[in-house]
């Protein structure tokens, strides 16, 4: 598979997961803007990366979703359950396409049609939401607020486009930080934009120091263009995913932007206004007396040219009628953004300075060049004198306040015969903001104002992520291979004690035997450390499995109309990746069973005095070399009498067993194959396969299942799983000359007792161990091999199984051993009494017994 595509699939899966989780959170807190942003970011990332591949349906679907959440985060529309459902379904669809990409590197042939159907639904929802959002005061002004940059377009240009009924386009270009490596030059792209009217930039540059990376693009741009949308898209087709284009329709250009003014003429007009005044005649004179930078003048200007079309605007500007609240918003915004000091007077005074400042600045620039070009020390004095003259005449004219500063610079330059002081003065004079006609804004401030706060925050987060992220993605197969090698090493290491024994017993060389044993200790320590190291790489938090369950519970709950609150505990508990993966199916079955069978319907719960909302708790707890997964519900519990009767009816148990079974044993019957407590199977569970599957899956992963239940209180199912399935410890025992392995995790202890302590109770051999009656079974009998000859003492393995604690009689204990258990293959697979086999250091095979099956 193409490594780039592989990486896209992996990353997109993570983003899908994050997006789905955020959606579930959003369903509970629909007003939370940060969660909406979270969803948006996940979708946005998938969309951005999808542009690299020829997977248009996927790209267009996530694009439509992105639009929907972009609108929501801009306050357009509301987060409804329809939005959540559709978004979750869309993400599921994207997930299934990712599966397809992983298998075939292609999308299914019907992907385009599927995408279009989703997109149509999303767009419908989006437009419906837009209507909801703007339904309140003024239906005609429904669009999102205009970008601030549009509001700065000169009045005459807006009027020109309005009269020509021409739309213009605002676009935002957020280049990918790595875009330089693709040969992109965003600044150039903006310069060459067709119909470019104006542009501005913002940046999120890091501090300039040794770690500054010049090849990370941190500039973003906004531009206004008069070209058509298709021309723009054609020009930007290689960076399409980094661009947002917004059409600004002619009618959206009809607003006033500038300063508020108080003027006698304006006041006079206001006073003369009556309901039947002919406005055009009355306001005409204002056009010649008001400052064109003021909103009032612009309103008059619109009105003179457009007549009634601009009437509302004029009314508002002149405060004639405030009932037209619908038009207020953009205007209020414009006025709040107007510079505080830009009244008529200061504007006029700036104008008078405009020409000389420009000329003076050009002259000063030339002086710098002149000073820098002087290479000969003998000419410096002359150059200083010449430049000093020029500066004196121009600075006095344009910036009289800086004359004293200039005199000082000239004196310094002459004294030191150095141009440095003069150049510094000119540079400072050139950057004197007071001389500028336009207010100068520091780049840092512009960043904050030009970019939405959330985007700045997101960029910062990305930046810190990219710096702090030192994770390495490794193919799992490579780690599995390492794990296998470590396993082989363990087996090879196990051969050393045999060799040592041989050296001593067969060759009589005790010294070599001693040295081999010493070396074995070193090797044992190193191999164990290596194995632990590799195992820790494979450890993943259970959250990777748990995360899918809130969605599952939500979907099932909605389907069968039950309200269920799922709580996840201990999500950060870690276990081997294979163990975690083996958990998925059992947990799905368990949760389905709990929701379907366990938790009662709301009315039934209320009648029982329980809260209407059912409670499910899924927890993970680390326990030495095991992890305990528990699913607890507060449902109706399992009634042992009902279960026993069903089991008898279905032939799962016979009459004798029916009578003998204790309540606890009866409850365990739900794990029996073919058992289902429901009369009719639902599509969720109830086909009698669920809990059976759970038990088998957990046991094949080397774990055990326990169930405890109380009627009308609830049920708890506990899964004890090994932290790792790769290496296991067994006790080697001997029976009739044969060696077997028994998993250490079920062995409580080993005891040797005199044969006369064995008693027979109701035809069963038992012993009393610390005041507890423990039944004894002979392993030779269970395996149907030669019986153990009579001895003075009995060797017993005290084991815990699903049948309780019992003593397993063996001939001898041979010590414990770390093994890599291999599953039985071929016809041996049918002998379920063996869970697997391993090779011993002397080359012989050790069969590992499956006591649960044997007993």
């Amino acid at each position, binding site marked *: 598979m193409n490594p780039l595509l592989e990486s896209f699939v992996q990353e997109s899966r993570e983003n899908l997961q994050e997006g789905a989780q955020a959606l579930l959170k959003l369903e509970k807190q629909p007003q939370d803007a940060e969660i909406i942003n979270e969803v948006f970011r996940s979708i946005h990332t998938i969309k951005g990366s999808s542009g690299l591949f020829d997977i248009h349906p996927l790209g267009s679907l996530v694009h439509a979703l992105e639009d929907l959440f972009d609108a929501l985060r801009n306050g357009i529309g509301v987060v409804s359950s329809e939005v959540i459902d559709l978004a979750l379904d869309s993400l599921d669809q994207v997930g299934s396409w990712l599966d397809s990409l992983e298998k075939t590197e292609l999308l299914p042939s019907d992907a385009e049609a599927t995408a279009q159907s989703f997109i149509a639904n999303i767009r419908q929802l989006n437009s419906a939401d837009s209507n909801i959002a703007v339904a309140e005061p003024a239906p005609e002004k429904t669009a999102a607020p205009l970008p601030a940059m549009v509001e700065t377009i000169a009045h005459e240009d807006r009027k020109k486009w309005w009269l020509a009924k021409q739309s213009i386009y605002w676009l935002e270009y957020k*280049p990918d930080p790595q875009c*330089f490596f693709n040969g992109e*030059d*965003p*600044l*150039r792209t903006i*310069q060459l934009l067709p119909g470019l009217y104006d*542009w*501005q*930039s913002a*940046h999120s*540059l*890091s*501090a*300039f*120091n*040794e770690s*500054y990376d*010049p*090849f990370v*693009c*941190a*500039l973003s741009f906004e531009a206004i263009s008069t070209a058509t949308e298709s021309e723009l898209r054609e020009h930007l087709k290689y960076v399409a995913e980094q661009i947002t284009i917004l059409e600004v329709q002619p009618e959206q250009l009809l607003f006033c932007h500038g300063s508020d003014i108080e003027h006698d003429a304006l006041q006079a007009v206001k006073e003369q206004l009556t309901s039947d005044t002919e406005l055009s005649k009355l306001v005409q004179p204002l056009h010649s007396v008001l400052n064109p930078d003021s909103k009032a003048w612009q309103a008059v200007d619109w009105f003179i040219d457009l007549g009634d079309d601009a009437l509302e605007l004029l009314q508002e500007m002149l405060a004639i009628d405030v009932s037209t609240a619908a038009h207020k918003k953009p205007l209020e915004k414009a006025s709040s953004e107007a510079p505080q000091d830009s009244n008529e007077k200061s504007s006029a005074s700036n104008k008078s300075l405009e020409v000389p400042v420009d000329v003076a600045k050009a002259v000063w*620039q030339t002086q*710098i*060049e002149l000073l*820098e070009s002087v290479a000969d020390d003998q000419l410096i004095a002359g150059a200083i004198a010449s430049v000093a003259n020029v500066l004196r005449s121009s600075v006095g004219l344009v910036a009289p306040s800086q004359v004293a500063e200039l005199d000082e610079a000239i004196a310094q330059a002459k004294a030191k015969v150095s141009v440095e002081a003069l*150049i510094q003065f000119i*540079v400072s004079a*050139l950057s004197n903001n007071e001389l500028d006609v336009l207010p*100068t*804004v*520091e*780049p840092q401030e*512009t960043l904050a104002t030009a970019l939405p706060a959330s985007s700045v925050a997101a960029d910062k987060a990305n930046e810190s992520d990219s710096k702090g992220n030192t994770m390495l993605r490794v193919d799992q197969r490579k780690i599995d291979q390492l794990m296998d090698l470590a396993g082989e090493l363990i087996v090879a290491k196990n051969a050393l004690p045999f060799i040592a024994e041989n050296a001593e017993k067969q060759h009589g060389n005790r010294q070599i035997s001693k040295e081999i044993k010493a070396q074995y200790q070193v090797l044992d320590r190193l191999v164990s450390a290596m194995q632990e190291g590799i195992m820790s790489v494979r450890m993943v938090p259970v959250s990777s499995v748990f995360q899918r369950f809130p969605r599952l519970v939500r979907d099932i709950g909605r389907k069968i109309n039950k309200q269920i609150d799922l709580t996840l505990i201990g999500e950060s508990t870690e276990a081997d990746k294979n163990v975690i993966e083996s958990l998925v199916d059992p947990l799905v079955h368990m949760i389905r069973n709990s929701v379907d069978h366990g938790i009662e319907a709301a009315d039934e719960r209320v009648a029982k005095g329980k809260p209407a909302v059912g409670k499910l708790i899924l927890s993970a707890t680390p326990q030495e070399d095991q992890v305990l997964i528990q699913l607890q519900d507060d449902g109706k519990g399992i009634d042992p009498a009902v279960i026993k009767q069903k089991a008898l009816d279905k032939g799962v148990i016979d009459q004798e067993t029916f009578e003998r079974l204790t309540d606890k044993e009866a409850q365990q019957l739900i794990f029996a194959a073919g058992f289902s407590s429901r009369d009719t199977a639902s599509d969720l569970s109830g086909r009698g396969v669920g809990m059976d599957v759970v038990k088998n899956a957990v046991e094949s992963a080397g774990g055990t299942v326990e169930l405890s239940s109380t009627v009308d209180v609830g049920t708890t199912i506990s899964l004890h799983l090994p932290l790792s399935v790769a290496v296991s410890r067994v006790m080697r025992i001997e029976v009739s000359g044969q060696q077997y392995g028994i998993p250490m995790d079920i062995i409580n202890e080993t005891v040797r007792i005199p044969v006369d302590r064995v008693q027979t109770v109701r035809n069963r051999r038992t012993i009393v161990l610390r005041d507890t009656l423990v039944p004894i079974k002979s392993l030779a009998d269970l395996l149907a091999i030669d019986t153990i000859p009579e001895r003075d003492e009995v060797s017993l393995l005290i084991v815990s199984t699903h049948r309780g604690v019992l003593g397993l009689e063996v001939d001898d204990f041979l010590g414990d051993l770390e093994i890599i258990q291999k599953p039985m293959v071929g016809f041996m697979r049918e002998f379920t009494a063996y869970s697997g086999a391993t090779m011993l250091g002397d080359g012989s095979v050790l069969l590992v017994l499956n006591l649960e099956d044997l007993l």
Partner: protein
Amino acid sequence: MAWQLKKTVAVADKTLEVEDAETLVDWLLETPNGKVNLKDNEYMHTAVAQVLIASGVVISVTPSSASQQQILQKLRLI
């Protein structure tokens, strides 16, 4: 070389490509009070413009090219 690196001034050539950003970064880190002379510059890659913004270096001579001057004004560099 796109930059003529003098003692205190880096003089730009007509065009400044992406890789010239790195040269400028190195020079500016070695020459903290250095200035740049952009008189002849007619084209500047985004990466170079970013260095000028990030470093806050003094532009001792602005480009002669009107269009280039306008770009620098828009970037609030002059």
